């Protein structure tokens, strides 16, 4: 097995099981996406051509009890931005976004069928990561949210264009403008979760789904996916621009400060 076929990093690991790549997120407390996770995701994206030769499906899941992913690492973002001049902070955010968009776009267009097995918290950047996948299977205790407006921001990892790709603008507006969280049943009714399963069952069901997908001709699956799931490139670019524009506003610094200084161990955004 080459180095690319398996990897054990600080924030994530992957291996091939039964012709399926399993990408496990395992950064405590809830897979917050910071610079280390980004570096390891980039490593995964670089390995994808090789993995795609060896496997027909990808399952993305979390090994953290709290959930799938709580989104961007706001503490790191705040610490880095506070230590820089405003222009440097803006450029740093832009660079981070460019890099994560490159990774997520590559995963989005993978020739493998991709499945997110979601439990618990799936917020912000975590939801954006799940939305890259072709199929989302959610444990009934999963909860989804775009809390970014509470910080004076919009989702920046491609969440809005990807959600709009799959459902009506009204649902996206409700999620975005209220910042409220939805449970798995509601997310399934809205349309972005395809299966709701029992507590603790998402990974098992995802493996079964991947096995089913493996029965079909690989090239046909890849062609069908490319046909039905185009990358919304123009909107992704505009989202990134808007995020960077909003990031410069004083309200964001206030929101981030409030978040990082919260006494709550795992603060839900104020």
């Amino acid at each position, binding site marked *: 097995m080459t180095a690319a076929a398996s990897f054990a990093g600080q924030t994530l690991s992957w291996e091939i099981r039964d012709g399926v790549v399993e990408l496990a997120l395992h950064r405590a407390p*809830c897979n917050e996406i910071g610079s280390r996770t980004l570096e390891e995701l980039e490593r995964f994206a670089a390995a994808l051509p090789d993995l795609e030769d060896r496997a027909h499906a990808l399952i993305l899941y979390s090994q953290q009890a*709290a*959930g799938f992913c*709580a989104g961007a690492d706001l503490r790191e973002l705040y610490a880095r931005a506070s230590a820089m001049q405003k222009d440097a902070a803006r450029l740093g955010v832009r660079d981070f976004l460019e890099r994560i968009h490159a990774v997520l776009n590559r995963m989005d267009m993978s020739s493998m069928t991709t499945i997110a097995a979601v439990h*618990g*918290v799936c917020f912000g950047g975590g939801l954006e990561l799940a939305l890259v996948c072709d199929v989302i299977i959610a444990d*009934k*205790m*999963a*909860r989804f949210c775009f809390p970014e407006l509470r910080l004076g921001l919009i989702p920046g990892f491609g969440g809005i264009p990807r959600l709009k790709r799959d459902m009506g603008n009204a649902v996206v507006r409700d999620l975005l403008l*209220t*910042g*409220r*969280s*939805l*449970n*798995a*049943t*509601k997310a399934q009714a809205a349309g972005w979760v395809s299966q709701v399963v029992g507590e603790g069952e998402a990974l098992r069901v995802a493996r079964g789904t991947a096995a089913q997908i493996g029965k079909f001709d690989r090239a046909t699956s890849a062609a069908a996916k490319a046909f039905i799931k185009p990358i919304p490139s123009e909107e992704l670019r505009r989202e990134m621009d808007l995020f960077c524009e909003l990031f410069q506003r004083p309200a964001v610094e206030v929101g981030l400060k409030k978040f990082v200084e919260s006494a*709550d*161990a*795992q*603060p*839900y955004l104020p």
Partner: protein
Amino acid sequence: MSKPPEQTIDEILTLAAAQFKVARETLAADDDFFKKLGIDSLQALSLLTRLENHFGVELPDYELQGVSDFRTLAARIQARL
């Protein structure tokens, strides 16, 4: 027909005790669930998910802003049954 409020409170206390592994008899309706269960706000959202699943309701989390006792939580749920 909706449930009697006391039954809703009792079911919430039972579910919360099971989820956070505390004895049911140690919980009371007017307890602050953050303090009594020792939970953070993400864990409180997890409790909300369990309650939504159990009662078959959808309760927007912003309706729970400032709510920290079981009795008020039960009243919010009761209003949607």
